[in-house]
């Protein structure tokens, strides 16, 4: 790609090592999945014109869904063109590894077996069209999360592929993920030593809030944090992290300024109410430090240059944050705004790459001499 294009997307001072823990790949259309479906499903998709799930988590008309300039010239939605991803993220940021999340709303597909077939097709397409095309890419496995047994089967099917480092779970779910019904997902993830990524979004029959359906996308967008809070609480109190002590969870696109006060409240109440969940060995904040990581976009830190540093201080660790651009979602204008500020050099290095490197068991830290895949 031309220098002009990559300069528009590059920060002014490119850090020596960057791992991007959240970039998005979007399925351009059902037709790219057809080769990976069985005859039966291929026929249904074409003759009954199944156009894929309707993902309302990133409506096309909303500014946050895509930055200007991410639309591929040749057609297809933002995030569907590898060359553009390489130019605008991987090369521009000198990214060593990027973790691809595909928010294809498989959980919205009501027919269980169709959801399973579509999820498998997405994963096979991710392997062929992305992982095998650029060795900097890693990816999250897409699963029919509404059917935990099927999800476990899919994790077992592709979980050992070296390109997959994580299982993608939309944070808005049919049931809170701590429910024993969902346990097979975590069991399979642990079996393959995969991270479980709870991700912004999710299209389910449940209303997005405990008070029903809000009117505006603005509300849904802001309320996603409460779904993260609820689902994390479920995972903790139901003992998922006790049953699988090696399990790693990443909260992706969750924001994080809500977390300290949430943990203070959760710790306080757990002390009096722990008897109801006696298998919880640690306080909630201890579980977070041991088992959970957070991506840095969207950055909802307190205003001012010290916002992130203050959160790190309140949470007690700089291990927790994983740099992300969340490409192509629109959270920052100038690329420099995505860089962590107010941190020591050592902490900044951890946030920019080293935390993700150890969390996702990625390769060595040899600095890259030049751009390119």
């Amino acid at each position, binding site marked *: 790609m031309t220098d002009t294009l990559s300069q528009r997307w590059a920060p002014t001072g490119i850090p020596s090592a960057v791992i991007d823990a959240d970039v998005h790949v979007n399925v351009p259309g059902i037709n790219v999945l057809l080769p990976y479906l069985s005859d039966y499903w291929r026929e249904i998709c074409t003759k009954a014109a199944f156009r894929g799930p309707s993902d309302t988590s990133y409506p096309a008309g909303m500014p946050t869904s895509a930055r200007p300039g991410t639309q591929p010239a040749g057609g297809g939605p933002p995030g569907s063109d590898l060359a553009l991803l390489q130019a605008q993220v991987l090369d521009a940021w000198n990214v060593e590894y990027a973790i691809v999340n595909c928010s294809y709303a498989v959980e919205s597909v009501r027919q269980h077996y169709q959801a399973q077939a579509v999820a498998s097709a997405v994963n096979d397409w991710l392997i062929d069209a992305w992982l095998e095309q650029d060795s900097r890419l890693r990816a999250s496995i897409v699963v029919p999360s509404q059917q935990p047994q099927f999800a476990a089967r899919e994790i077992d099917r592709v979980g050992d592929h070296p390109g997959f480092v994580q299982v993608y779970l939309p944070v808005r779910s049919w049931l809170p993920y701590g429910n024993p019904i969902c346990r097979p997902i975590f069991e399979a993830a642990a079996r393959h030593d995969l991270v479980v990524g709870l991700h912004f979004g999710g299209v389910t029959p449940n209303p997005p809030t405990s008070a029903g359906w809000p009117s505006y996308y603005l509300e849904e967008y802001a309320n996603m944090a409460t779904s993260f809070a609820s689902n994390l609480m479920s995972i903790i109190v139901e*003992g998922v992290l006790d049953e699988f002590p090696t399990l790693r969870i990443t909260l992706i696109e969750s924001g994080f300024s809500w977390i300290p006060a949430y943990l203070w409240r959760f710790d306080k109440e757990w*002390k009096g109410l722990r008897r109801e969940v*006696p298998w919880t060995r640690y*306080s909630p904040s*201890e579980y977070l430090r041991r088992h959970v990581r957070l991506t840095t976009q969207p950055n909802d830190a307190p205003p001012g240059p010290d916002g992130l540093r203050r959160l790190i201080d309140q949470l007690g660790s700089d291990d927790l944050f994983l740099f992300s651009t969340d490409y192509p979602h629109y959270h920052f204008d100038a690329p420099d705004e995505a860089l962590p500020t107010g941190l020591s050099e050592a902490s900044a290095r951890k946030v920019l790459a080293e935390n993700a490197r150890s969390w996702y068991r990625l390769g060595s830290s040899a600095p890259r001499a030049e751009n390119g895949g």
Partner: protein
Amino acid sequence: MARYVVARVDEIPVGGRKIVAVAGESVGVFNVGGEYVAFRNRCPHQGGPLCEGALWGFVASDGPGDARLVREGEVLKCPWHAWEYDLRTGQSWYQTARPRARRYPVQVEPGRSLVANPDDALLDLGYAKGPFVAEIYPVSLDDVYVVVEIP
């Protein structure tokens, strides 16, 4: 230190208690399996009437869905915010980031036997010590009387 007779032995059967006003303090005297222990009637958390709390058991669990009682009746649970205190030692049992509060010494009269290292047993069950330790007072028996020492 002054010593106060707070009850006759037969007033407080095993599992029972008596709350008395002594030397300007409210004190709860408990009979824990034949041992007497005296607590200041004030929870270190927010000052609730600790000695009016119900007695529960400790809970052992090997994993989600598994729960069984051990040392039944030996958890004094504050009637307000449900903080749990070991009735034998006054130690609260939770883990937090807060530093430990100042600990009062527990004196056990010779001839009495407590469970060996009850703290270790709880740690083995997965409990961790909380930040609070309830104030307990030395208790001894004088003939048929229960005697508490108040500083």
